[in-house]
């Protein structure tokens, strides 16, 4: 009982803080500060049509590097914890029910299309909504479909980790090239900016986003495959 009263009082307190916060919030009429700078200069400086991409990849590229590392750490810790459980119980194989006919047939058509759509999303990240994270998630969902259609198939861990390492090295390498050839780490002006609004433009942003997309896709795939290969707990 005392616990319920305590929780109620806590929620009331947090709620009143929120109420006064939104009461004091003044509606923005125009862009201020850093947002204004990005809106005025990002298109000319970096040549990216999508300003969110310009912020994520170049202006705050270091944050993206940290984010990708956190995702990598997650998949590494997850693999470590789940592999501790798998040892010593390799003798009994998992039994899978066969997937339905419709799912198997549809997956053959859908998986290549979903892969191409994911690649489209991260290659066009500087022009349209989308980018490496969304594209990587779409590719991982194609892998989910293939796992559902063929539960007994194995997805090679070394293949996933190879792609992941190549993408990571490429991402860091593009960043270091920015120090050498342009003005700082992860600067995208190591290449010609090109015509504004075309596919090959915005310097290194498409290349960095392709690496981010591959890396995120590989990490999410590794999380899913690790969870799939864990034995059911009896």
């Amino acid at each position, binding site marked *: 009982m005392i616990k319920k009263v305590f929780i109620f009082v806590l929620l009331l307190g947090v709620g009143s803080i929120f109420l006064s916060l939104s009461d004091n919030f003044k509606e923005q009429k125009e862009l201020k500060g850093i947002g204004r700078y990005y809106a005025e200069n990002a298109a000319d400086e970096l040549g990216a049509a999508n300003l969110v991409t310009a912020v994520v990849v170049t202006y705050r590229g270091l944050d993206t590097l940290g984010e990708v590392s956190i995702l990598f750490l997650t998949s590494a810790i997850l693999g470590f914890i*789940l592999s501790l459980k798998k040892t010593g119980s390799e003798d009994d194989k998992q039994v899978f029910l066969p997937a339905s006919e419709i799912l198997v047939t549809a997956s053959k058509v859908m998986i290549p299309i979903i892969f191409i759509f994911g690649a489209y999303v991260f290659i066009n990240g500087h022009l349209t909504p989308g980018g490496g994270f969304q594209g990587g998630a779409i590719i991982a969902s194609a892998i989910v479909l293939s796992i559902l259609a063929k539960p007994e198939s194995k997805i090679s861990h070394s293949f996933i980790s190879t792609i992941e390492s190549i993408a990571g090295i490429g991402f860091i390498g593009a960043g270091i090239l920015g120090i050498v050839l342009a003005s700082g780490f992860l600067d995208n002006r190591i290449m010609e900016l090109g015509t504004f609004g075309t596919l090959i433009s915005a310097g290194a942003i498409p290349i960095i986003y392709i690496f981010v997309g591959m890396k995120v896709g590989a990490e999410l795939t590794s999380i899913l495959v690790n969870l799939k290969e864990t034995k059911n707990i009896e």
Partner: protein
Amino acid sequence: MQYLTLQNIGFATGFILILIGIWGFLTQKNIIKIIISFALFDTGTHLLLVAVAYIKDRTAPIIDSSVNSANAVNEIVDPVPHALALTAIVIGLGITALMLTFTLKLFKHKKSLDITKYKDLKW
């Protein structure tokens, strides 16, 4: 009626989602339900971030044929909170996956999802 703006609706939804999340992880006993409450809390913060960035009658921060590049400052919403929300969503998935993995590990030891059965650190 003047309070019924898009921004205020976003604030209300976000704050109430956060409150439901806090209420959930304080009252629920099932570990999966606690993790679900954290996910709701996450969604609430993303809604708040995006609602803060919104400016009335403006469009998405993408410069194309419909947004004049020279006058972009007066036509687009704030892109910085969008970038933050993007980061927050991906990290939220990582946190959810980690918590669920630890749940699997805990379930293997005690064969229970009830958080009150885990008393090893209680004194």
